[in-house]
């Protein structure tokens, strides 16, 4: 996918990235499809991107069946993994970096962007991802504020990219810190 490509094709994550296996990538894609379908969107819906990059792009995604809905019945969990999908695709699209490393964090994963020149997490930027199934401008701003506080750059903190995905509009805020 290149920056000239106007569409965000979710299924492209199913092939995986250096730090995401194809099976996890496919699961994230499925979660994002459930989130988008659940709020009534169809493939081709416009994603409004704000933050460091102000643009619009169409999201191309497949429909979901009842089995997928049942597998992703936990809304919070599904929204988190759906946000991973959109955010990682945006990271690859909008930065010269790719997802190179991952670690376990709480009930999910932590993704790290880099160019692969250093091992593990050295000289890599963390992805701070947050998902909202259906929010209002206040809740999105409040989530962004919270994420910014979490990643305020000071001595001893790590470089990071913040990505907040709201599926209702749908909208994404992507900022490098």
């Amino acid at each position, binding site marked *: 996918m290149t920056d000239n490509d106007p569409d965000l094709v979710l299924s492209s994550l199913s092939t995986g990235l250096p730090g995401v*296996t194809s*099976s*996890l990538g496919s*699961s994230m894609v499925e979660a994002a499809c459930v989130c988008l379908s*659940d*709020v*009534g969107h169809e493939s081709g819906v416009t994603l409004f991107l704000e933050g460091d990059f102000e643009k619009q792009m169409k999201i191309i995604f497949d429909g979901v069946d009842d089995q997928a809905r049942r*597998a*992703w*019945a*936990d*809304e*919070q969990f*599904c*929204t988190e993994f759906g946000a991973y999908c959109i955010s990682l695709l945006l990271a690859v699209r909008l930065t010269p970096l790719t997802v190179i490393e*991952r*670690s*376990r*964090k*709480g*009930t999910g*994963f*932590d993704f790290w962007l880099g160019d692969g020149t250093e*091992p*593990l*997490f*050295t000289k890599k930027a963390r992805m701070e991802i947050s998902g*909202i*199934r*259906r929010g*209002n*401008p*206040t*809740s999105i701003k409040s989530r962004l504020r919270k994420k910014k506080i*979490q*990643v305020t750059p*000071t001595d*001893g*903190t*790590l470089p990071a990219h913040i990505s907040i995905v709201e599926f*209702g509009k749908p909208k994404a805020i992507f900022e490098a810190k």
Partner: protein
Amino acid sequence: MKDVVDLHTKAMDLAEQAFVSKLHSDFIGFSKLSLEAFQFEKAAADLLINSTDEPNRSVLHRSAASLAIDCKEWREAERLITRALSGEPPVEIAEELRDLLQVVYFDRHLELKGIKLDNTELQFSLAGKAVSHGTVQSRFVIDRLKSTETLFLRTIERKQNRPFREKGKAEKNLTDHVNLYLSVPRAASFAVTLRLGEPTNQLFLPGLNYKENVIDEVITCFDLFNKSEDEQLKERIKDPSYYTNFVALAKSIAPDGENIDLVGLTALSGSEIRTVKLTRRTKSIALFNPLHISIQEENKFIVVKGRLEYADSRKNKAPTIKLNDEEHKKAYTIQVPDGMMSDIVKPLWEEAVEIEGHLVGKNKIKMSDIRKIEA
């Protein structure tokens, strides 16, 4: 470093497989793969035990500790977290390690540890920034306990097939016997035992095996709510007013993610201990299915802030409240959905609140959510 990278890569591949197994309800596969992933990640972390290579050291320890928690290896998780914190982790990793430590202790505190519950009792535990060992800022616990008491009362009314009571208090002969008693708080994260009063005369509660069913029903509904099993929860709570009321009360008990991270409920069901770790965040819980909102309504979505000043729930009228937005010198008439006036809106009387809803006329809003603005 190559050994560390190889071990970590194996661990993460297994952790991803474990995640996919869980997603497909293969819990045996999840446990087996999580344990293998944990062993590889711990081996990777062990190789950096005396290293100052950050963030690698702390991130690998945090990752291994998260996997240890999946495997219920609490002591290993505690050891890994404290080992990571004893080094020089980056600020945000240190913060996440502390949060993880809280999860470890909270899970331990969900266990009863010698406390003997009977079938009319429930252990209620809280953890988060507002909680220290055995103490909690009162406002974060009192509101939740009040909501829990109301939820018990509503559950009993529902199980007795009484129509939903939109206004007024519950019958005295019911409240007399459904008082909630609190034990002395225990030094866990923060834990108390809630005990329902024993009805002296079962005739007050016809059709309800009180001792066996009430707490079990509450735990089951919380479990479905926490798993977002909305359809199953609706199947269990068929009356829409009772359903809305349950979700709104459960939302008010759920963790806010800022001051309270975890709310735990532990109870006996027969001889079996049942535990629900409520992790859904208040802000992520929608009271109403967005699909029921038309596109026209969606375009009129509005959030207003102000003081709750007037309520009208007279018979034959849709319940309404007035919200006075002092900052913008505006007053709104708010339509309140069934099931919310008495237990959710009324306790917020004269409080500063934020209301979400849809404009259905000039300064008239169909409410979809309400929350108190914390000072």
